[in-house]
């Protein structure tokens, strides 16, 4: 196999791009013959190693990484150093390609805006019972008494909030608190 390096701007090879899907068996090696001056790993099921043409140095590589070179290389060698097969997709090309194909579907979790309000209140339980706490952007519950407070159940089946303990949540639903007689709690709400 020749290992000819050709100048990008020499006019002999015009811009091109091609994608390959390769399954590398455990400890397997694969040579991909396609001229390139950039190599992008579009996806991989694991980390593998690459050697750029006859370069004896190998490089760790995985999905999301790209290497770019000043000259065109004729092939790339892929090596799976693990005991598990790796499936990978490589994009090899000549020139300068941008990849703007990323799209996102489904629900995108975004950071909430900064809080505008804070309120706090205290409740003393004269009798054992359950109350419901309304949702907010953030709710902080402090057990200010000496009894255990139970979060999320209708009895002692909830999470235990020990005396002086604090529980913080961004749950967007009603939260139940079970408190025994004599319990005191403080609730702080950010909105």
């Amino acid at each position: 196999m020749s290992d000819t390096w050709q100048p990008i701007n020499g006019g002999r090879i015009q811009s091109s791009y091609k994608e390959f899907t390769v399954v590398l068996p455990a400890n397997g090696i694969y040579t991909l013959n396609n001229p390139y001056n950039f190599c992008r790993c579009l996806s991989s099921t694991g980390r593998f190693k690459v050697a750029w043409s006859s370069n004896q140095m190998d490089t760790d590589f995985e999905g999301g990484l790209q290497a770019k070179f000043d000259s065109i290389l004729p092939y790339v060698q892929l090596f799976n150093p693990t005991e598990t097969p790796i499936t990978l997709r490589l994009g090899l090309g000549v020139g300068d390609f941008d990849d703007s194909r990323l799209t996102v579907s489904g629900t995108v979790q975004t950071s909430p805006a900064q809080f505008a309000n804070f309120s706090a209140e205290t409740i003393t339980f004269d009798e054992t019972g359950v109350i419901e706490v309304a949702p907010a952007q953030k709710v902080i519950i402090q057990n200010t008494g000496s009894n255990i407070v139970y979060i999320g159940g209708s009895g002692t089946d909830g999470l235990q909030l020990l005396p002086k303990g604090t529980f913080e949540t961004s749950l967007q639903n009603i939260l139940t608190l079970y408190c025994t007689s004599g319990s005191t709690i403080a609730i702080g709400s950010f909105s």
Partner: protein
Amino acid sequence: MFNTSLNNPSSSDYDFDNGVSKSVNTNYVAEKSGYFVVQSVGGGGFQSGSIIIGSNTWGYTNLDGTKWVGGFPVTKGDTYKYTQGSAKFFPKK
């Protein structure tokens, strides 16, 4: 702290220093007359809920996110409950 100002109950009529907390979704029978106060705790309030005293039901709906407080007199022997939030019963003096 419970807000007992709604409907202007008089502190000369009710003992607002000695309220008794009540569980959500639980039926109680008033052993004495008093004033039943329900309020939203935490967050910006509940979307909806109700107070049931005897055969009367008062619904509360909160669409603007503000906290909700409601209170009504209870006569000895009445059954009473609430469906969301937190509540206390204040006995009549």
